[in-house]
């Protein structure tokens, strides 16, 4: 069965590269450019994993993560936070809000894919 991945980022080029990468790995992919759109896509697309940028317009990644984690029906859904801010406090905040992993930009494609696969297999 193909896993569904939702990519959320406000940088079109990053979205583009991630979309290409995930499709190549055989995942089903949907994209969103801000927090609100992300929440809508989670409803419509029901992804198994969300790649979530932190710094976004409208709703930040933290807020989106918090809302998603408040819904028990989606407890199985994995959340991987992506951020260009790599400070310890920010990592801790993301994990504290219930993210399953925290990846700092720029990242290695291979490592990201490995981490996603591991998370999906473990779930």
């Amino acid at each position, binding site marked *: 069965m193909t896993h569904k991945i939702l990519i959320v980022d*406000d940088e079109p080029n*990053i979205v583009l*590269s991630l979309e*290409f990468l995930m499709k190549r790995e055989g995942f089903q992919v949907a994209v969103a*450019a*801000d927090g609100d759109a992300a929440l809508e896509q989670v409803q419509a697309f029901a992804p198994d994993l969300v790649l979530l940028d932190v710094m976004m317009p409208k709703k930040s990644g933290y807020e989106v993560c918090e809302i998603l984690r408040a819904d028990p029906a989606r407890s199985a859904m994995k959340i991987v936070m992506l951020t260009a801010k790599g*400070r310890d406090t920010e990592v801790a905040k993301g994990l504290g809000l219930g993210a399953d992993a925290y990846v700092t930009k720029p990242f*290695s*494609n291979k490592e990201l894919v490995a981490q996603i696969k591991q998370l999906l297999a473990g779930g």
Partner: protein
Amino acid sequence: MSPWAVFLLAVGYLLLLFAIARFGDRRADQGRSIITANVYALSLAVYCTSWTFYGSVGRAASGGLGFLTIYLGPTLMLMLVPVILKIIRISKRERLTSIADFIAARYGKCQSLAGLVTVIAVIGIVPYIALQLKAIASSLQVLFPHGQGVSLLGLDTTAVIAIALAAFTILFGTRHLDATERHEGMVAAIAFESLVKLLAFLAVGMFVTFVLYDGFGDIFARAAAVPELSRLLGLEPSLASWTSLVLLSALAIILLPRQFQIMVVENVDEGHLRRSVWLFPLYLLLINIFVLPIALAGLLQGMPGNGDTFVLSLPLSQGRESLALLAFIGGLSAATGMVIVETIALSTMVCNDLVMPALLRVRALGLEQRSDLSRLLLNIRRVAIALILLLGYIYFRAAGEAHALVGIGLISFSAVAQFAPALFGGMYWKQGNRAGALAGLLAGFLIWGYTLLLPSFAKSGWISGDFVSQGLWGIEWLRAHALFGLEGFDEISHCLFWSLFFNLGLYVLVSLTVRPDAVEAGQANLFVDVFQRRVTQASRLLWRGRASYQALAGLLERFLGPERARQQLQSYARKRGLTQLENREVDAELVRFAEAQLAGAIGSASARVVLASVVEEEALDLDEVLNILDEASQIRAYSRELEKKSRELEAATRELRAANAQLRELDRLKDDFVSTVTHELRTPLTSIRAFSELLADDPGMEVVDRQRFLGIIVTETERLTRLINQILDLAKLESGRADWTASQVDLPALIRHAATAMEQLFRDKAVALRLDCPDQPVLVMADQDRLTQVMINLLSNAVKFVPAGAGQVTVTLECTADRVRVSVRDNGPGIGPEEKEFIFERFRQGGNTLTDKPKGTGLGLPISRQIVEYFGGRLWVESELGQGAVFIFELPRKKDGTKTEQREERPHDPQDPDRR
């Protein structure tokens, strides 16, 4: 009206006083004092004697409104609450029980000074007491004009009343020896008397004004119609006499022995003074309000006499006997109140300051061996009371109708006014000393006697009046009423001027020339600085010596009586939490306590003498005392210094804390900046790495994708480069290390140049660009490249935000005399009010959607603003949401023809390190 009825009424009234006084004393013994603020204020009205009750009308009948001065002075004096409070505080702390004691204690507990004050007071006051007795006698004469008086055991009524007063005073004034010397029963009785005389006077006044006549207006109108009377309605012309009378009465309210007794010694609570400040003047107002109407009515009715008896004779002439009796009781209460308090005050002074010092000196009496002197002391006082009253009675009998009695009120006032320099000077001037006080008092007293007392004797015909009319030994400038040729004053003003002139002058001069002794210097400090707590501590340092507890206790027992002495010592120990007082070493505090107790009983001067008999005091010489006082004041100065230092430290700490907070804030901002820069740098890097890896992983990627991805990598690399350049640029601008060149810049040309550079971008998005600039040059002083950078930034912002196809951007240049304004208007989405300042911050960009996410670094506007401000201009935005935005910058205009002159707006100095 039966004489016996009147006699019984008078006796009955005195018995009522006894009852009230007994009640007051009983309550005081039970610790439930009836002395409230109201009672205290009323008791102050002992100031209003029969001289007020009868005499005011007499003065008004002859002198018009002049009588009011006697009541204006006290009202003014009472406003000086801090002064009176200071007297009370000093007296309480030093256990001072009379004005003689007060002055003597201030000048080193000097017996001779105490004696002199006492002598002046007795000489000045005894005639005044006689005046009261005379008032009683003459009021009886009005009631019984045909001489059918009552005589008891061959004594006339006045004598009987004098004896009753002596009995009252002895009973309630000398119940026991107490360090506080308070007589609450007596005070209560005096307060009651004040009420009685006020009510009586008001009753007569209302009768005369509203029954006999038709109100104030009626009386005044009728009086105005009579030429001799109309002059009474005007003010006396003599300013000198008004001034001296106001001054005299202002001093008297404190310096008269009875006033000092009531106001200071009998004060139980300093707070009571505040009530008196308005209640006592109100009392004076009420008791004076009918004076003029009664005087005018008496004159209009053609009453006999000089007006002193109108209060009685007016009701009598109308057949109102009961009203006359009420007035008689009022006058009686005014007289008795004065006599009682004055006698107590004088007897205390006579006993403590004249008799005791004499007795202590006469060794033959064996006073040293007597185990209990308290009874002796009380007996001395009782005898003194009787003697003073007897003296008063004898003076009254001898002087009779003589002039000596008529003006005695003011003569007494003038006598006690001599205490003013020594008393007030001593409270506020540390240098004032004993020699000065003695010299001043003596001089003042002698001049008073020569210019006021003796002339009154002369007028009575007791002595020759030559010294008044021709001067002593025929020397003209020694004429008693024109001393040193000073003429044109009334006799009171004349006396007051010369006596106070010499009194004050000698006090100051001698004080400045003679060195005080050690005790004096210490006392001066205690008095002047009574409100400073450290003074008491310093005062302890001023005693050094040895004493045995037994000797000290024995001394107290002898003078206070064994029981009272034991009580006082026990309460002393209890208050300080000490046990076994008898086994402790006697310290300075205990000696001072004992001295204060003794001072309360026998006066401070005598107390010092008897204490010296049991205490081996190491005599401190003046220098030592001054050193100790100096140290105390140095400690004071030092601690002030410390307080100042610690305040400064606190201020410095506050400043440091503020600076630290500011630094923290800067640090946080810098941290945020670094974090933001990192974010901005990582974002393009992320794309570049991701696409590079994709390309590297997949060599067989389709050409289309490959081209597209490579294109993105190039764009993102450019973005990264631009970002790094701008960050460096901004950092340079902000740190002031940027390289600037300044030259004359033709702004319209610069705008056209920038527009040309941006042409392609506008054309790509199909946005219209309109320039509205004059053709001729408009010069500013600026850096050509930097300003172009600003212009391009504003244009690229505008084109970024306007809709493709329908976009319109207009650049306008306007000039005023000294400024040039360039505005760039677009028809984009506009900027909300909260974003207007926000967009000039670093890395903040307007616009929030992914679809039109502006491709900028977020540094363009901050950099532009730095550049414009560097050249003395400003950059801002005017906009409303949905209305487009106008970015405007203004620069100072370079004036034509001043090419040699440098810009005056902001000095252009690229090296200036402060430049931001």
